[in-house]
């Protein structure tokens, strides 16, 4: 990023010569950036005004009647699932924002812990230990990526539904609904992530064995080497793992749609948000013929904000994650 930033010419010359040639460039950059941010801008503005503000001026809903009532109602625990009336059916389903967030955070934490462990251990074993079969195991794991993930979607769903002795199933997986609409369906797939293992392996390949050998001379065992020597050096990789996991799971829609559509208590944010606006509008006793724009925008802001905030704080690592450790070699 720094290469284009060069020392400025002296201030006198830069004041004398205004860079007219660059005006079109700036116009294009600024306008295009604003276009990119436009849907988010409308969302943020729309979430802070009244429904009238939006209906009167939908292309830029300036909040003349500024209020954070939408946020208050949606963020209040339980507020959105106590209403009756038109949306009673939906309301009973407990589309409660805090609940959705906690569900998602629980899932993210679980995956961070488990995939963090499997990735670092897998990376270590495949990189630093010498054993027969290392290349074979590595190739075997990589080969799973040959076919696109879409192929595993349906059979994994069937696997969840036909899991033996779960959710009313018998030993052959018949009779019940297995893990469908239950927590395990959201928690037991993809705990060994080949891409992350690969990422850790590549990074560990670049760390000389000398560190570990020195520690072993001092009497350290494998786990001590792993935790005291490698982990501190792998911090950037962990940040990339954290970001990838967080953004992917926070926005995860398809898999939860497949397996927990019938249980609002387990839904993650990206799936449950659809029901929130409606239940919130019902809780606020908005007239049912009026689409709850304000609530839709508020839910949108709350759902989108965490990933964007994460990006603003950890920009450097995001860039690293996109570029991939692979491309850098």
């Amino acid at each position: 990023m720094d290469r284009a930033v060069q020392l400025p010419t002296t201030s006198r010359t830069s004041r004398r010569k205004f860079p007219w040639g660059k005006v079109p460039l700036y116009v294009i950059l600024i306008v295009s950036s604003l276009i990119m941010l436009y849907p988010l801008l409308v969302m943020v503005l729309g979430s802070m005004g009244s429904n009238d503000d939006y209906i009167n001026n939908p292309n830029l809903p300036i909040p003349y009647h500024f209020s954070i009532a939408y946020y208050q109602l949606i963020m209040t625990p339980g507020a959105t699932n106590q209403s009756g009336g038109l949306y009673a059916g939906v309301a009973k389903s407990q589309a409660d924002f805090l609940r959705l967030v906690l569900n998602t955070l629980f899932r993210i934490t679980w995956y961070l812990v488990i995939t963090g462990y499997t990735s670092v251990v897998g990376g270590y074993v495949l990189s630093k230990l010498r054993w027969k079969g290392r290349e074979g195991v590595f190739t075997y794991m990589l080969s799973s990526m040959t076919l696109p993930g879409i192929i595993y979607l349906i059979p994994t769903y069937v696997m969840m539904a036909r899991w033996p002795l779960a959710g009313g199933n018998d030993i052959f997986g018949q009779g019940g609904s297995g893990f469908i609409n239950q927590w395990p369906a959201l928690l037991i797939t993809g705990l060994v992530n080949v891409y992350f293992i690969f990422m850790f392996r590549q990074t560990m390949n670049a760390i000389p064995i000398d560190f570990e050998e020195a520690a072993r001379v001092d009497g350290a065992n494998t786990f001590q080497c792993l935790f005291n020597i490698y982990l501190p050096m792998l911090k950037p990789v962990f940040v990339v793992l954290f970001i990838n996991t967080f953004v992917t799971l926070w926005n995860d829609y398809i898999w939860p749609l497949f397996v927990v559509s019938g249980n609002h208590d387990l839904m993650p944010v990206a799936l449950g948000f659809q029901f929130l606006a409606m239940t919130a509008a019902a809780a606020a006793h908005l007239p049912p013929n009026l689409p709850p724009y304000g609530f839709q925008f508020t839910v949108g802001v709350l759902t989108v904000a965490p990933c964007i905030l994460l990006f603003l704080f950890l920009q450097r690592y995001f860039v690293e994650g996109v570029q991939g450790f692979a491309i850098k070699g």
Partner: protein
Amino acid sequence: MIEAPVRIPPAAILPESRLSGPERFRRWRQRNRQAIEAWVLMLPLLLYFSLFFLFPFVSSFLISFVKWAGMGPPPVWVGLTNYVRWLTDLYYLQAFANTALFAVAILLLQTSIAILVALMLNTKVWGRGFYRTAWFIPGLTAASVMANIVGLFITPGTGIFSLMLTKLGLPDVIFYMRPDLMRMVIIVYSVWRGVGGGVILYLAALQSIHPEFYEAARVDGANRVQLLRYITVPLLAPMTLFVLVTGIIGTAQIFEAVQFLTKGGPQNQTNVLMFAIYQEAFSNGSLGMASSGAILLGLLLLVSSIINIRVMTKGRIQD
């Protein structure tokens, strides 16, 4: 590999056969420490991985040959019927055609815009961080949520486009009844979300071009267009190949935009494979169709996937 120094017990000088059992085990363990640790650590991972890789992998193909709702009556073997239906029925062929159209259109637009923006951002401009952030942020949003918001923009009567048309004195357009417009909306929305990653990739590629190339060319009297034509473009070619080949994996699995904006309509004109697969599995209760559709989509993307792994493992873009 240096081991931790161990005091050599007197027994060590004895031949192996004369050692006691525990002592022989201890020596064996010491000799094979790395292999033992590797298997102890790796075995649980491998078992888990195999369960969630081999089992779905095999059953995916099996399910694709049966007629089965997932529960209720047992599966009935129907041979290639599911595949034949995907490849002959006009309804499904439309989904194939739309997927191809969307994937190619989104990818080309996304890539060309990403190159242009990266080129602009690679110059000495004020506020680079802001532009870069603005271009990257849409990709971080939940596709499902933002598709919902975009849906509001095209609502007849109160959407932005309706308002603009009304202001210009033109008749209102009902987007949901116009396949051509809905296709455009889906493409524009997907490009909006997907372009940021490309910008970052191209920026990195541009910054990795050694400035000496440009200096040398400038000394030889090349102008800016020539610099672009003979240095930048050729050096970006490998990255472009990579972005196009691997990008197709993502764009061909377009789903949320279709689900939230059109549900495949009007008249199936914007249906895509992922959405058709989803409907087969959950609306039509036909896991066989869903699975065979997924396999067909997977086979179409096979080449891209293989190239993707090659790039990953070889650590470079061209061989």
